[in-house]
């Protein structure tokens, strides 16, 4: 009897193992007057699926929460949110193709993307078809589309404060900088900002290396770091997902550790990555984010708890990209309710100035379609969490056109006046 139950349990787990969800809606007993379907477009297969699936989960969770709380209210009518998930398959042109299809299918909004390449591929599609994309990842800036809402950090909300911290207040303060990144647009741009910033604030920069996205062989880069930084220093790391694992494992083997005076500041290591790489390799290194799971507020705790419950995984962690994805669903809801319609043009107008009490604290949508938010610097501790060392005093306003880049200095973007100040205008 006992055995047979075990078998059944085994069979049940086996069948659970088969994934087959792609389409569905939030559950909730409340009755709704109407329904609206939104699009979710992330990689569910391929290299990026690893990261992007967590965003899909978070977005689904946000939708489920909104539905459970009565859905979207427009002029007294309640709307239940349904969602349609599409797979971008880590293939940038496919993102563009699917985005086009989803806009044609009439979804008022699409939540999606992770890599800059996928966003860049989708941008012209959204612009030509007048769709609206909500994009949740911190990125390099230098663009400002009327058809995209960016809820991740701009460089001045992540890398600039982090560089400042590393040069002046970290354990490696005053030491030279070495920049390491994957070879694509975010690390390249981020690093050129960092270099300009170091020049301006008096830091020393000794080297810059890029690893091709298809390669895992970090050995040569480590050799160069050892040569350039013989007595410790700061390493600014913008490597991508999997490459981080190889990087952190091997720098430890080579003795590039905090004990020896080497400190890595990463812009793409969040709680999820710490879990994967293992805190034993990351302990003592730094990261900069707007949200960290260790934020000790009820909102943050509830967010983490709900996510664990929603994914039925007690070990699940939440991180900045997920929080950002979570926020964007709520921001859209608020904007729609404010506009009183799902019409894109109206929602866009209502969007600017929308606020939300996010797990990280209050955030607000700025006229350049980015959000103002705080920055936190954390140090990885042995439990695999961040010890938050600093939180910016003020809420930092996003700069899409970075002031450390020559061509962009003195430019800004303001979509409340699309004719004169849209995209890029001289201040």
């Amino acid at each position, binding site marked *: 009897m006992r055995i047979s139950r075990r078998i059944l349990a085994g069979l049940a787990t086996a069948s659970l193992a088969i*994934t*087959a969800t*792609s389409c569905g809606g939030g559950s909730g007993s409340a009755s709704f007057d109407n329904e609206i379907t939104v699009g979710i477009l992330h990689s*569910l*297969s391929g290299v990026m699926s690893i990261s992007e699936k967590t965003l899909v989960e978070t977005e689904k969770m946000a939708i489920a929460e909104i539905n459970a709380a009565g859905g979207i209210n427009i002029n007294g009518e309640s709307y239940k949110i349904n969602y349609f*998930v*599409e*797979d971008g*398959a880590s*293939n*940038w*042109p496919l993102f*563009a*193709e*699917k985005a*086009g*299809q989803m*806009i*044609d299918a009439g979804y008022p909004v699409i939540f999606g993307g992770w890599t*800059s*390449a996928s966003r*860049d*591929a989708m*941008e*012209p*599609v959204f*612009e*030509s078809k007048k769709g609206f994309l909500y994009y949740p990842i911190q990125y*390099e800036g*230098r663009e400002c589309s009327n058809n995209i809402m960016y809820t991740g950090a701009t460089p001045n909300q992540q890398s600039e404060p982090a560089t400042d911290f590393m040069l002046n207040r970290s354990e490696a303060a005053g030491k030279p900088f070495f920049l390491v990144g994957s*070879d*694509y*647009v975010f690390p*390249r*741009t981020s690093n*050129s900002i960092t270099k300009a910033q170091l020049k301006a604030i008096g830091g020393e920069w000794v080297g810059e290396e*890029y690893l*091709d*996205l*298809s390669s895992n062989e970090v050995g040569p880069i480590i050799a160069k770091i050892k040569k350039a930084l013989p007595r410790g220093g700061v390493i600014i790391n913008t490597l991508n997902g999997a490459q981080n694992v190889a990087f952190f494992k091997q720098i430890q083997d080579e003795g590039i550790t905090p004990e020896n005076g080497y400190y890595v500041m990463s812009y793409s290591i969040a709680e999820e990555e710490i879990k994967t790489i293992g805190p034993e390799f990351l302990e003592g290194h730094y990261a900069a984010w707007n949200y960290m799971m260790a934020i000790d507020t009820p909102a943050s705790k509830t967010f983490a708890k709900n996510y664990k419950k929603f994914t039925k995984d007690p070990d699940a962690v939440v991180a900045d990209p997920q929080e950002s994805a979570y926020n964007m669903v709520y921001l859209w809801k608020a904007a729609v309710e404010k506009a009183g319609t799902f019409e894109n043009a109206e929602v866009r107008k209502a969007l600017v100035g929308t606020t939300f009490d996010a797990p990280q604290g209050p955030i607000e949508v700025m006229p350049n379609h980015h959000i103002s938010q705080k920055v936190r610097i954390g140090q990885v501790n042995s439990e695999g969490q961040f010890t938050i060392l600093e939180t910016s005093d003020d809420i930092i306003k996003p700069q899409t056109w970075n002031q450390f880049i020559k*061509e962009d200095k003195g430019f800004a973007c303001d979509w409340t006046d699309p004719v004169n100040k849209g995209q890029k205008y001289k201040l």
Partner: protein
Amino acid sequence: MNLKNLKAKNYIWAIISFLIIIMPFIVSVSRLKILGKSLALGIVALGVDLSWGYTGLLSLGQGIFFTLGGYAIAMYLQLNSSIGLPNFFSLYDVKSLPFFWEPFRSTYFTFFAIWLIPGLLAFLLGYLVFRNRIKGVYFSILTQAALLVFYNGINSQQKLINGTNGLPTPNTKLFGYLVGDPTTQKFFFYITAILLLLSYLFCKWLVSKRFGRILIAIRDDEARVRFSGYNPVVYKTIIFTVAGILAGISGALFTVQADLISPQYLLPPFSIEMVIWVAVGGRGTLIGAVFGAFFVRLFASLVSSAVPGAWLFIQGGLFILVVTVLPQGIVGWMNENGPKTLLIDISLKLDNFEKNFKLLPLPLKNLIKFLVKKSLTFSKKSITYPKLDHAGKEEVEL
């Protein structure tokens, strides 16, 4: 009998042409783009079929020529729709246009570059490799290595060619028309269909002559061809060059409808996928290559949006299927009376049914029996297979 077949064929062609003509008016632009892209891939599939299906040269690097064609047109569009440098250069502090892009400002140059550059490269690579008698799997591995050379080269050069991000096209202008515009896209669709037809006719013409027979002879026994007084290097180089040119054209047509050309098309899976289109459709049959590319791609985009991830399972299964049980592909199978043979096989199996499936549970056994009997009686009645009984007996005697 023959006449009837001919008529049926004509009807099919008429229906297909009709569908292609009315398609832009009945489906949305985003769907039309998918159809157009699938048609464009038919052109590269023709090249793969010529080189692999006919000549036995399995190139795993057709993505190189495809992508070169794509980059040529994308860069031309970028250069001719922006004042000064294309936008992306400013991201990397590039002040002046890299010298090798300079000629791409010219329409004439680009028109030739789209097919001539891939063609020349294919000629060069092919000539060297074939002259040194590198063939079979070595050729495949070598082309794959060349593919990775191009992938790494383009993917890592942000400053020269926008690296990983690739070059987008929808906001660019072709002769003053916005490329992403629905009307322009409809135009591209027709252009693709026409070029596909032309390429098909060209390939058909090519293989209908003695040339085509020599290609097959090279596939069957290259040494014999050599001892018969032919230089296979010449033939192989010609066909590989033609395949390269077709890939370049296909890449250019694909890019303007895909909104983006990126190094992802240089990754090995894409180039190997081309082989599966040809294999499923029927290697050595040009029509099979075109239909294979079209329907496999269409099927892929349907499946992958219904069940993400399932497509890889199906694609993997297709590869295994075409090498184990369906080596001639669907068209080849039809040509060789495959359906009939299958039914005969089943009817033979049926006799040994009890013996072969001893361990199956009874109800399932009865169900299978019932189904097979039904389909057999059905096929007996159908006029297509009138000689089933007779043929069946022959098989038994053998």
